[in-house]
């Protein structure tokens, strides 16, 4: 285990699923790193492959899915060749996962306490006796009032926000090095969303966690991310530090996404929200040219051919033929 390298390193990860029309390439050769204590947001609209990418890391893909990668390493350990048994040791212990729907992510017929304690008992068999104490402690840590009482309650006793806090507590039971959060605030009320986000950032800082956050919401990403990875059509189309991204988004899709953000700015008041015309491309079969070209206002004949490479400048990567030419010509 190296102390300097990234916690998670993904190179050329692909995921494909069987479909009656041919294989669906949900994720096409994506690469990104998550550094120690870093928050990386994968942003994109539904069906762009962001959740698949996250699930592929722990090999929690649906049956029939095939994943491949040049590298998939976590704390220096190769997850690609790791046996299922070893992956089970890592899941819930070194990597905690938070899912979107706190209502359905918890088992309705087990108590909150049991669901928290079982992770700890699974991964810390020598400290079984402390599972209860640890669970109460973690429920307190995520800001759940009267944690002792909650231990014996069932998920349906808790509000959506509290349930999501319980899910977060569950992910933190074994002090993981990294948390993968798949749309953790999407199913919640706006006010609760803000609270949960604040909690995630706070916990991340307190426990020195790395966080891989999957979201469709750039506003969420802008508040928590150190780095933003934009996915479109199964590919990474842009990858930059949050600052660089919001200062100068380069991919036309990323710029389009930013234009879609609702704003309270008086200048834009009364104007209709922007939309990106068209729909997401089909992921079936092989790819030629840019995945975004049919919806892009700047597309030209050069966008139709070959595979558009990721161009990189100062750690800002963009998959667009015009990316840095445009930047450099300014």
């Amino acid at each position, binding site marked *: 285990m190296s102390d300097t390298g990234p916690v998670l390193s993904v190179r050329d990860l692909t995921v494909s699923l069987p479909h009656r029309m041919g294989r669906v390439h949900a994720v096409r050769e994506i690469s990104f790193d998550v550094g120690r204590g870093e928050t990386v947001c994968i942003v994109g609209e539904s069906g762009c492959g962001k959740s698949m990418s996250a699930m592929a890391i722990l090999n929690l893909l649906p049956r029939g899915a095939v994943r491949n990668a040049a590298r998939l390493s976590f704390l220096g350990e190769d997850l690609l060749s790791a046996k299922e048994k070893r992956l089970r040791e890592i899941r819930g212990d070194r990597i905690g996962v938070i899912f979107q729907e706190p209502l359905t*992510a918890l088992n309705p017929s087990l108590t909150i306490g049991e669901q928290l304690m079982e992770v700890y008992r699974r991964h810390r068999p020598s400290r079984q006796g402390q599972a209860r104490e640890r669970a109460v402690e973690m429920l307190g840590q995520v800001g759940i009032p009267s944690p002792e009482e909650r231990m014996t309650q069932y998920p349906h006793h808790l509000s959506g926000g509290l349930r999501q806090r319980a899910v977060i507590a569950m992910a933190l039971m074994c002090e993981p090095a990294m948390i993968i959060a798949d749309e953790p605030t999407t199913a919640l009320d706006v006010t609760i969303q803000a609270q949960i986000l604040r909690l995630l950032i706070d916990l991340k800082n307190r426990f020195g966690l790395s966080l891989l956050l999957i979201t469709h919401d750039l506003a969420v990403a802008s508040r928590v991310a150190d780095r933003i990875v934009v996915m479109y059509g199964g590919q990474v189309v842009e990858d930059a530090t949050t600052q660089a991204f919001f200062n100068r988004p380069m991919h036309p899709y990323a710029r389009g996404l930013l234009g879609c953000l609702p704003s309270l700015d008086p200048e834009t008041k009364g104007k209709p929200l922007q939309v990106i015309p068209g729909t997401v491309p089909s992921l079936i079969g092989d790819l030629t040219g840019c995945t975004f070209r049919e919806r892009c206002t700047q597309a030209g004949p050069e966008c139709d051919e070959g595979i558009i490479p990721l161009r990189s400048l100062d750690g800002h990567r963009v998959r667009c033929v015009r990316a840095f030419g445009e930047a450099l010509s300014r």
Partner: protein
Amino acid sequence: MARYVVRQLMLSLAVMVAVSIVGFVLLRASGDLALRIAGPEALADDVERIRVAYGLDKSLILQYLDWAWRVLHGDLGRSLFFPEEVSTLIAQRLPITLGLGALGLGAAILIGLPLGTLSALWPNGILDRAVLAVAVLGQAMPPFWLGLLLIIFFGLTLNILPVSGAESWRHLVLPTLVLAIATMPTILRLTRSGMIDALRADYIRTAKAKGLNPFTVVVKHALRNALIPIVAIAAVQMGALVGGSVVLETVFGIQGLGYLSWESINRADFPVVQANVLVLGVIYCILTFVSDLLHAFLDPRLREQ
């Protein structure tokens, strides 16, 4: 929880009263009981004497109230054929029928639950298809016919099992097998569909993401939720097994409640028939009540209603 129990209990009591009324009325609507007891060659005077002796001359409501009053005091009446009291007869026969039903249901669960779970783990796989074929076969075969086939094969052709009576455990093998084959498909199908649903649920993905081993994921997280409707059905199935014992006990010559009912109907032994109907109804109600309790115990959301 207490309110739920009380409500279900009241409901069960109401059903028991309704069953007793319907059973009582149906029996009297089936023909002139006095005439049947006396026989076709009896004199009209004798028939009338019998009618008065058994209280059959009173109004239906009075007869019912009179009977219900005695039942509430533990008196089920006297058999017209056996020297024993009806309650003694039932006390002798009921354990055989219940025991056989429990054996059959137990075997059905023991086979159906694991097979249904395995089918659900690989839906539409080879095992799943084979298991479903067996289930369809089991469901389609009438128990009396299956019983006769088994008697011919194991009793006559192979001559390794007794075909009639209930004197030893070897006598119980074939009837248990018939009951299990008749009940297992229901349990199996319910387990399979329940498990397929449960395994697709988000909480299963959560359980996997927690690093739990596959056995824990399947049994503790999925089966626990899939089991809720199965428990409810299993209890009702037990009732159906006891009710269906008339046919099975006749085929295998087992002296249980079903056989007693069959004999008594043929002999117009109406106090016994009436008591049997009541006992079967009560058993059904108790099983339904137990099923409701188990349901509530397994489903925390129901527990609080």
